[in-house]
Structure formats: structure tokens, C-alpha cells
């Protein structure tokens, strides 16, 4: 960052620079970066079947929501015979509903809305949680901390679902992004508390203390020491929050509380359930197909969150990176020397 180390020895520069005793070439550095951040995680992911399966499921649904919408036409009433059985025709492989709409097309056209909701909800709740948690953790013991934590505790103990139901009943949101934001309202406090306690424990680590004693500015400590440590937690919890958003949004559509403006898995379940699908075998596919989708998507997210756990594990990653092993200088080496391959 700074060019001239004159005789005044600047600790901050030293800290920021990540100095290596023998400077490596740019190619080496790029290669090492690639190894540590792309290849090694990929290798762990292959080792850890959970991350692999979870990622594959998520990718499948993403494809469904992007390419699938292009490939499959938007279903309308009377596209096909009413209540056709599944696995009989290529035009409607999962069968049709009482209006003659192919079930697979409804599933596919519900996916983009689903992802919009998940995205908005996860961004709002995880972002808010991280902000509140980091600020409270850093201002630990001050009035700001106790104020933020009081709010957090209040929101935690208010029953979330009834609150959301009242809010959606009054405002009748139709835009999936807004639905997601509403659902994010009760999903942030738990994560905010976790982030805060993480920040507190990271602050007590000796290297953070050392940085503070050295007089490194707060912003650098936040950036270098704390945020990098927090990212894994935020990512893992982001996946779990997404699962809760799915549960709640589909639940509200299933109840019929959110307005039916677009295709949604919950809407399909609602119509089927109201039509007594459980006692009519010919209507069962209409009910079961969205249920399977919800299960798969949340299963993928749960697996992914668990796989990410090991993906972000620094020691595991170092063990799987080849370049850092050959180089005797980098400090990652010390930890993995004992690990071996």
C-alpha cells in the first residue's frame, strides 16, 4: 500500500501489507490465490457430498427458474385434458390439474417468484442482522449495545407468524420482493445475536487484541480481522434463513392469506387441498408435486449450509491446497504441516 518505508517504522503499513519474507512473483501469487479460493474449496466440495448435493439441487432449481421458464410455456386453463394422470404423456409428464394446466409448467413458472422472495428476504434479514450484530458487538457494554439488544429481544419474542399475517392481511403485497421483505422482518434477530456473540469472541482473540494495542484503526480491524471471520457464519445462516423464508411464504400462500397473483407452490397446494385432493387419488399429483419441490429446495439449502461449514474451515482448506504446501514461507503452512494429505 505505501511505497516508502523510511526510518519511521509504520506498524499500520506493516499490518496492511501482509509481508512475505521472500516476495513471490505475480504468477505465483495468482496461482496461490486460485488454489486457496477456488480449487481447494472445489476439492473439499467434492469430498464433502453435502455441499455437492446441496449445490446441485440449488443449481437445478436456478436453471428451472431461468432456462426452464424459457423452455416451458406459461400454463393456461384448458392446455391439456383435465386431471390427466402423471407419467403418461410427454406434454404433461407430471399430469394436470382440475383446470387442465400441466403441473410441471406450474412448478417451473412458480420458481422465479420463489427465488425473488428468498433473495429479498435473505438479503434484508441477513444484512440487517449482520449490521446490528457487528455494531452491538463492537459497542459492547455501551448504551448503543443495550439499546440494539433490547430491540432484538423484543422482536425475538413477538410471535413472528401472526405479526406477518396481520401485516400481509392489511397491505396485501403482490410483488414477490415485497413479500420477501415482509417475511424478513421476523427472521433477523436470532442471527443478529449470533453475530454479536461471534464479534465478541473474535474481539477477545489475541491477534485482534494485538492489532488494537498496535493502534490499528478500527476500520482496518473490522475489515481484516472480523469481517473475514464472520463471512462463513453469515453465509451459513443465509442458507438457513432462506429455508425459513420458503417455509413461511409457502405457508402463507397455502393458507390463502397472500393474494394469488402468480403461480406459487403454496397456491397449488391451497387449491388442491381445498378441492379435497387428499381423498381424491386423481388430484393427488397436484398436491404432492409442489410438496416435493419445497422439500427438495429446503433440503438442498440445509445440506449446502452444512457443506459450507466445512468449506469455510480454514484448516481443511489449507490441507486441500497444493501450492501453499510447497511454499515454505506462507504462514498457512504451519497449521497444515501436521495435517498432511
Amino acid at each position, binding site marked *: 500500500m505505501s511505497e516508502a518505508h523510511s526510518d519511521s517504522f509504520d506498524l499500520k503499513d506493516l499490518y496492511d501489507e501482509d509481508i512475505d519474507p521472500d516476495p513471490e512473483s505475480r504468477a505465483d501469487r495468482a496461482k496461490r490465490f486460485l488454489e486457496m479460493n477456488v480449487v481447494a474449496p472445489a476439492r473439499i466440495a467434492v469430498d464433502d457430498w453435502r455441499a455437492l448435493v446441496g449445490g446441485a439441487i440449488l443449481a437445478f432449481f436456478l436453471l428451472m427458474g431461468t432456462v426452464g421458464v424459457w423452455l416451458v410455456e406459461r400454463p393456461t386453463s384448458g392446455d391439456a385434458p383435465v386431471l390427466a394422470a402423471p407419467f403418461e404423456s410427454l406434454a404433461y409428464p407430471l399430469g394436470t390439474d382440475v383446470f387442465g394446466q400441466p403441473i410441471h409448467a406450474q412448478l417451473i413458472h412458480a420458481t422465479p417468484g420463489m427465488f425473488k422472495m428468498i433473495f429479498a428476504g435473505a438479503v434484508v434479514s441477513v444484512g440487517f442482522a449482520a449490521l446490528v450484530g457487528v455494531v452491538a458487538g463492537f459497542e459492547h457494554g455501551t448504551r448503543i449495545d443495550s439499546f440494539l439488544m433490547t430491540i432484538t429481544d*423484543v422482536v425475538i419474542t*413477538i410471535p*413472528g407468524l*401472526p*405479526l406477518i399475517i396481520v401485516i400481509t392481511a392489511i397491505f396485501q403485497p403482490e410483488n414477490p420482493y415485497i413479500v420477501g421483505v415482509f417475511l424478513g422482518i421476523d427472521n433477523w434477530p436470532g442471527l443478529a445475536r449470533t453475530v454479536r456473540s461471534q464479534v465478541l469472541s473474535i474481539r477477545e482473540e489475541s491477534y485482534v487484541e494485538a492489532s488494537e494495542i498496535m493502534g490499528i484503526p478500527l476500520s482496518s480491524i473490522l475489515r481484516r480481522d472480523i469481517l473475514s471471520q464472520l463471512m462463513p457464519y453469515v453465509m451459513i445462516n443465509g442458507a438457513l434463513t432462506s429455508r425459513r423464508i420458503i417455509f413461511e411464504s409457502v*405457508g402463507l400462500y397455502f393458507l390463502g392469506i397472500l393474494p394469488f397473483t402468480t403461480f406459487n407452490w403454496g397456491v397449488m397446494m391451497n387449491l388442491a387441498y381445498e378441492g379435497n385432493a387428499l381423498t381424491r387419488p386423481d388430484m393427488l399429483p397436484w398436491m404432492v408435486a409442489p*410438496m416435493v419441490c419445497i422439500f427438495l429446495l429446503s433440503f438442498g439449502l440445509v445440506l449446502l449450509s452444512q457443506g459450507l461449514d466445512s468449506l469455510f474451515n480454514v484448516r481443511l482448506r489449507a490441507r486441500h491446497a497444493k501450492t501453499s504446501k510447497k511454499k515454505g514461507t506462507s504462514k498457512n503452512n504451519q497449521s497444515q504441516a501436521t495435517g498432511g494429505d
Partner: protein
Amino acid sequence: MTPKYLLKRLGQAILTFLVTMTVSFLLYQAMPGGPTEAMRSVILSQSGGSVDIDRLNRMIQLYTNVNPDQPMHVQYFNYASDVILRQDLGTSFFKNEKVTTLIMQRIPWSMFISVYALALGYSLSIFLGVMTAYREKSRFDSTVSSLIIGLNSIPYYIVGVVLIYFLAIQNNYFPTGGRIGSGIAAGYNPEFMLSLVKHAALPAISMGALATSGALAMRGNAIRVLGEDYIRVAQLRGLRETRIATQYLGHNSILPMYTQFMIGIAGVFSSAVIVEEVFAYPGMGLLMFEAVKTQDYPLLMGTLIVFTAISLTAIFIADLTYTLIDPRISVGEE
């Protein structure tokens, strides 16, 4: 027990209640077009014909305790004093009865299934968490852990739907809905009791499925505790396995879970809204659902406030037991 800790928790509960009440008041004000405009059509459909604005406002005041005519702070003061001092949550638009009366009739039923769901879900997650940790990496561990992950990926209301399909429709083990069999006289007779339990079983199980989400965290805790020295010492002392599992392992791994369990109470209680609709179980959740469907705002806000009050009470009771379980609280540590 330190009174200071309890006082702090009590203060927090009261604060939360006040916040919820304020939110419900603000939601009245935030209705699209204002409370008068938003509720006009609902009230008109009830009383029929047209009414002038003054009469409409008076009716709104009668139903909701909020009079849109007055300045905001006066409205809020009246609303708050009605809720707190007179326990008056307004009158239902459609049932023409006090909201509190309507809710009071439903509370026991919701509490019945919620408390059983909590007991079932929490004891199951503690038990499974400790057991899987104790046999870590065995076949039992991997089977149970995968089952729990699978269960956590299914929303509780889908668990309910699946239960209905297999246990109530395909096989007639349980009724598909309702809270009591028809033609059974209420009273302390075995027939009534059996019918009561049978109707509550499936809703309670599907809500309990929500509460088992703690099992994996419990397993992680227990594994960490297993590595502690005092467990080894206990084993070396030759203590019985059951004693180690319950008193050493169980007790110490529950502690960090306790707050999570308390937070979960609110979640399980509120899951009643969806579960009761699925099972047509006439508790508070179903009342709330009906209120949404008919735009019965006073009833809707009332159920929100009562849901909060019940959760707060339950969490406070759990807090009382926390002081018994965690010795650190009694010496005033946080």
C-alpha cells in the same frame, strides 16, 4: 434466584407487550387509505345502507377502540388504556361479540396442542441429540442425523398434511380434523378423553416437528461436552453410563440450548395458525385465520396481541426454570 435477573426479564416482557400493542395501533393507522376508508366497506356490508362519516367513525370507535376523529395521541392513549386497564380488545365485526370473549373460548384448545407439541418436540430433540452424540459416528448416529436433516427440510404443515393422508385418510387411526368427536358428551369419561387426545395428537405431532430443529445443535453441544475432562473423570470413577449421560452430559449440553429453546416457544405457538387451519382444529389460530378471511380487523389485532401475551408468559415461566437449571444465574452472572 436473583430478583434482579427476574425483574429484568419481567421488564423486557412488559416492554415487548407494549411494543406489540403499539404496532397493532400503528397498523390500524397505516391501513391503505387510513382506518376510516379501509374499514368503511367492511362495516357497511355489515350494517347495510349508507352512513355518514360521523356515524362511521363512531362505529369504528365502537368496534376497534380507535376513533379516527381524535388527534393521534388521544387515540393512542384511549386504545392503550382500553387494552391494558380494561382488557378490552374491541368487538368483532362479524360475530358481534367482544374479541376477548371470542379468544378466551379458543385459548385452552390452542394451549393444549401447543404445550404438548413443545414437550414432545423438545424432549425428543434433547434425547436424540444426546443419544447421537453418545454414539457418534455409529450407524445409529448417521441414520438419526439424516432423518433429522430430512425432517427439518419439510415444513411442519406439510408434515401435518402427510400425517392426515396416511393416518387419517388411508387408515382410520385418527380423525381428519376438529377437536372432539360428534355426539360425545363433555365430562370426565374415558370416551371423551380418548376423543380429545385423538383429535389433538396429529396437530401436536406436526407442530412438534418444528420443535425438533434443535436436535442437531444439541448433538453438537453434547459432542463438545463429551470431550471435557470431567466426563473422562466420571468415566474413570466408574459411574453408571445412564448417570453420565443424564447428569453430566445432558445437563451441561442443555445449558447453551436453553435460550434457543425459549426463543423457539414463540415460533411453536405461532405455528398454530397454519396447523389449526390444516386440521380444522378450532383454536386461536383458526380464529385468526377466519379473521383474515373476513377482514375482521379488531379480531385480527386481538389475536396478535393475545398470541404475544401468551408467548411472553410462557417464556417468562421458562425463565423461572432457567434459574433452577443454571447455577450461574443465582450468583448474578449473565
